[in-house]
């Protein structure tokens, strides 16, 4: 089994509403695979199935050859699968450094009872986690923010903290749920660089995104979801020229590619 994320035959219905229908796709290590689609296409449900927040009715989610237990979000970190959330999810009341350190939670092996006495191992563990977290903050220009409460940060920085927290997991697969949502257009470029950096580090990135410019500029492979099904997939160029994609997004009618990607 190849490295990265492999989703096979995933279906999910809420009552009579079929949200996902036999979805199969791959997000190989070291590359960016995008999932696009109009509102209600099932993108968020797909992210939730992969990360275990929603139990699928059928199908499997496999990371590096290991099948992940359905509907068990807690197990994902140990499998090195990280995710960000469409609506910012950070640990308010905690500093930026503590937020990032939380990312390393599942990598720390010490027992909870050992923390009560804070023995040498517990201390060393903590020191290593904090040093790694600090290095990540340095890398993303957040070093000056380490001790600020995360809720005191501007929205864009808080979103970046969320992404850095995922990197602190040392993930092999990352699911980004609408990372550009709520950010001004000017932020798209640095965001694209951050995401591209993840893939360059060998992470398999599954990018679920509305912003077509972002998707088309950095993805190697684009999967189009419509009404819970894979409508088509291919390179960004192939997808942009696919008449069905244009129709799914904009309804039938003459539309140039340029208008679509605007």
């Amino acid at each position: 089994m190849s490295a990265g994320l492999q989703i096979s035959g995933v279906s999910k219905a809420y009552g009579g509403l079929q949200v996902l229908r036999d979805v199969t796709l791959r997000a190989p290590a070291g590359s960016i695979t995008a999932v696009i689609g109009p509102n209600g296409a099932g993108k968020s449900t797909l992210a939730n199935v992969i990360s275990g927040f929603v139990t699928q009715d059928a199908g499997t989610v496999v990371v590096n050859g290991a099948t992940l237990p359905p509907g068990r979000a807690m197990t994902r970190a140990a499998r090195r699968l990280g995710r960000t959330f469409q609506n910012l999810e950070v640990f308010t009341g905690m500093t930026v450094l503590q937020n990032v350190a939380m990312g390393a939670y599942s990598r720390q092996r010490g027992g909870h009872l050992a923390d009560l006495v804070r023995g040498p191992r517990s201390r060393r563990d903590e020191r290593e986690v904090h040093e790694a977290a600090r290095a990540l903050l340095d890398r993303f220009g957040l070093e000056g923010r380490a001790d600020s409460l995360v809720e005191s940060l501007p929205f864009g920085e808080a979103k970046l903290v969320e992404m850095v927290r995922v990197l602190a997991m040392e993930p092999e697969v990352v699911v980004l749920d609408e990372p550009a949502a709520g950010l001004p257009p000017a932020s798209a470029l640095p965001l694209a660089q951050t995401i591209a950096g993840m893939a360059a580090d060998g992470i398999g990135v599954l990018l679920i995104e509305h912003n077509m410019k972002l998707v088309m500029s950095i993805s190697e492979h684009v999967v189009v979801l419509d009404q819970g099904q894979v409508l088509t997939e291919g390179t960004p160029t192939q997808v942009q020229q696919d008449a069905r994609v244009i129709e799914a997004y904009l309804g039938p009618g003459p539309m140039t590619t340029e208008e679509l990607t605007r």
Partner: protein
Amino acid sequence: MRGRRGASDGTRRRRTAWELWVTIGLLVVLPLLAATDYSLHIWTRMAIFLILLTGLNLIQGVAGMTSLAQAGFFGLGAYAAGISAVRYDLPPLVALVVAPVVVTLVALLVGVLSMRLKEIYFTMATLGAGFVLFLLFGRMVELTGGPNGLVGIPPFSIGGLEFTEPIMRYALVAVLAALGAVVAHNLLVSRTGRALRAYGASEPAALAVGASPFRLRLLAFGLSGFYAGVAGALEAFDSRFISPSTFDFMTAVLLVVALVVSGAGRMVGPILGALLLTGIEVFAADYADYEPLIMGVIFLVAVQLFPRGVAGELAVRWEERRERAQRTGEAAGPAETAETARTTRTTGTDGAPAMIEEVGR
């Protein structure tokens, strides 16, 4: 790298450590201020409250789950120790170990049954547990002495040494209270404490990084039971008489209120809460019927003035002042390096939210 670490992760950790030192410092200093037999008795009560509240703070303050079982657990600890000593002739030292073990097991049982519930239902479950325990204290007459209480509890002793002198009784409780504070501090600054807090802030994100809410909260609740067990045993050996009324619903509520008013989740909250409870007990001795009234008024006023608790509010104000000082320091600082320039820009000097464009480079 090293120097910077000391200056930054340290700030928060040191601040918590400072709160720990205040707690231990007060335990040492208070009896020096007034060391009459009566005042030592009062300080002993205070230290017992401190142990109770330190335990409650783990589940209520850190994990954010309101527990109304702490008075019942307190009573269970007292009865477990008292019954061990009176009915089974176990040495007090053994009873002091038995009590927290019994209470921890009961807390874990209650926790396993109720920890998966939403917070409000968890609170109701703990209320139920507290009621059941309270009823048992009164009904199991042969074991507990019923409403008349359990009499004839011996003083605490190790070997042949009896802890009858007020100063020794205080020292015993104070040492255990200090130890309890150290352990709670360790938990708070460790990965476990961080994860417990994280759960209160964002459940999805905490799940996504692999923290188990059930296990963490169960641990916090079990620990709160352990502390209550120790406090209960100490109460039994200090008062040498226990009766159900000490561990009723009112006590459970008072403990929660005292902690919230003082600063739930802060390391210094429990000692402030313990001082408050002791103060009220002493003050209200002459107006016993008005104790709930006094507490009620304090609570009403405090939640208006200090929504985060006295300790929480002071800490936040201090932090704000520090941040302001830092900002003015930055502005007045010497030649900007590229590093600081970037940092200030991401802060948004003009007040507009600076976005990540400065950062990804």
